[in-house]
């Protein structure tokens, strides 16, 4: 065992908090393990310490992919901060002013110190920050928040998917299978010690997502795409299409194990990303080419679009009507619904509204997570 100094302990705790802020799930046992490896002297070898912490703190592939950058950024940042803090201390030793000076319209004003503290409080990250991001409209996310929103989305989608999985399991064991029970009893001298159960075959849930990737949906389509990718892991029978002026069947591209690779491939293969919106034409193409395969009374169809149709509205109305007749449930998710005072009065939306079973918003993380219930009721 090697004694570790107080500064290093603080640094390690800071790093743990830094990881937790970035949605790593690190419990007390993990922190204890991290201290144990430090005490064994592994921290003296940077690479060994790096890889050890990686094995302890990462719990999923998504964490694993981010860890190297975080580790390097944190420990380098720490040294820089240490250096700056030392410089500041030297300056503060000279004199720390009670107030800050600001210049407004050519005149000098003294800003009270309290104001400065408030500013710092606003920058504090934590639970409030997560709540704020959860309710932030995807189209209004600034560059500074983008990375944190990504991390939060990843974690919340993961939690949602775990809830899905649990509910999909059937707790009921079903009725007793007499034939199997008798067969099992042969090896036990005819005593029926093990009862065999016959489970009712679970009906497979079938979902079809049709995502609008036209220019007007640009700010939303990326998050909606990721949302569908998460759901794909839990719905074996999920089909995914994207459209703007043409329809693309994306399901075969979701096979790759890596999210980044999937996104890259979709980006390279999806036709007319960020172009015009021809919802009617695209949905008619879906009906003609894939309708017989992916539409039945077991299917729920989810269309994710703002409904700003630039093509033929009659065609759109007919296509949506036909889809509704041929599926179990038709849901339309419109990011614009999240806007205050939004009314579905655009030509496209007015025509499709009578055919929909549900019309929901999908403009921020919170609204996407609320869809969970809707999908569970399929």
């Amino acid at each position, binding site marked *: 065992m090697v004694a570790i100094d107080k500064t290093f302990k603080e640094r390690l705790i800071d790093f743990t908090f830094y990881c937790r802020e970035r949605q790593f*799930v690190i*419990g007390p*046992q*993990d922190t204890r*393990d991290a201290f*144990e*490896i430090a005490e*064994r002297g*592994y921290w003296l*070898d940077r*690479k*060994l310490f790096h*890889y*050890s912490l*990686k*094995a*302890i703190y*990462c*719990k*999923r*592939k998504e*964490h*694993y*992919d981010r860890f190297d950058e975080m580790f390097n950024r944190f420990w380098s940042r720490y040294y820089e901060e240490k250096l700056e803090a030392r410089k500041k201390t030297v300056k503060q030793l000279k004199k720390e002013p009670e107030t800050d000076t600001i210049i407004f319209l050519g005149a000098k004003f003294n800003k009270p110190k309290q104001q400065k503290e408030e500013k710092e409080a606003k920058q504090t990250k934590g639970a409030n920050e997560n709540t704020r991001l959860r309710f932030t409209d995807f189209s209004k996310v600034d560059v500074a928040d983008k990375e944190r929103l990504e991390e939060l989305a990843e974690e919340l989608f*993961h939690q949602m*998917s*775990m809830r899905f*999985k*649990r509910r999909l*399991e059937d707790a009921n064991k079903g009725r007793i299978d007499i034939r199997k029970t008798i067969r099992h009893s042969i*090896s*036990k*001298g005819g*005593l029926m*010690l093990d009862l065999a159960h016959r489970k009712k075959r679970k009906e497979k849930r079938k979902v079809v997502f049709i995502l609008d990737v036209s220019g007007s949906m640009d700010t939303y389509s990326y998050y909606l795409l990721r949302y569908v990718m998460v759901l794909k*892991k*839990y719905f074996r029978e999920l089909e995914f299409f994207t459209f703007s002026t043409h329809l693309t069947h994306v399901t*075969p*591209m979701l*096979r*790759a*194990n890596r999210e980044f690779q999937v996104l890259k*491939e979709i980006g390279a293969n999806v036709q007319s990303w960020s172009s015009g919106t021809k919802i009617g034409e695209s949905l008619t193409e879906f009906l003609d080419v894939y309708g017989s395969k992916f539409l039945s009374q077991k299917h729920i169809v989810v269309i994710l679009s703002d409904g700003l149709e630039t093509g033929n509205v009659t065609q759109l109305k007919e296509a949506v009507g036909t889809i509704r007749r041929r599926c179990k449930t038709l849901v339309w998710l419109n990011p614009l619904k999240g806007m205050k005072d939004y009314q579905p009065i655009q030509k496209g939306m007015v025509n499709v509204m009578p055919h929909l079973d549900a019309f929901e918003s999908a403009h921020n993380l919170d609204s996407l997570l609320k869809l969970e219930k809707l999908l569970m009721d399929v």
Partner: protein
Amino acid sequence: MNKEIEGLISSFYEQGYILNKELATSVFLLNNLEKPLLLEGDPGVGKTMLASTLAGHLKTDLIRLQCYEGLDVGTTIYEWNYQKQLLHIKLFEQEKDKRTLGEEIFGMEYVLKRPLLRSITADKPVVLLIDEIDRADEEFEAFLLELLSDFQISIPELGTIKAVSKPLVILTSNRTRELSDALRRRCLYHWVDFPTKAMEIDIIARKLPEIDAELAGQVVNFIHNLRKSSLQKPPGIAESLDWAKTLLLLNADNITDEIVRNTIGSVLKHKDDIEFVRNRTVQEFLMPID
């Protein structure tokens, strides 16, 4: 780098498994922190092989539990030996009273030990491989929690059985479904990626010493280009080795269109993937990549 880790790398190398430093650190911690190691990665990257090599390195037994849907306590932890219990009752029902008989038949000698119980009752630490945990049901993950955190198993009639010697537990997953957070929290984690080009050439050269270096380089280039393509099942290391072996058997000096047409079945296992390759020229897949 730590001397023990360097020792681990060289010992694995001698057994034909090429460890990188990162994975070696995880294996080292598995041994030192006494925590299970969860290995995730695409099929064919060497996750299962790592466990058998570790057992070879430690000169201990490997106990393997292959997971599948419907695994239960009876097949993984223990089962009562009903025939033996019934025989015991028949033999002694005249001599002993019911209570004594009841107590006797629920002893350790009437327990059929399954892999998990065997691993914690072994005299010396064994390597326990719980392979493809993602194929098992979620209930089975819950069974495992007690074993993974406390290295003990509870049997209602016998009480809690603590590990005589803690096994080194390796869990593997191909990520066909997400594992529970409870299970992940109890493990060290490592994502096993496909090897780098140089590493894969090294693996082939190590397993097939008679192969020409240029041919090995071509095989690896081809395979790496295939992995970058959108295939239903990207080839793993086993496929690279199979193909290299096939080329050796055919006395091929280099990879040509004809050879690819005739032997691609040892690399790709899906009709669509095979057609994808057959519709392209061999040169496209031999392009050097970083």
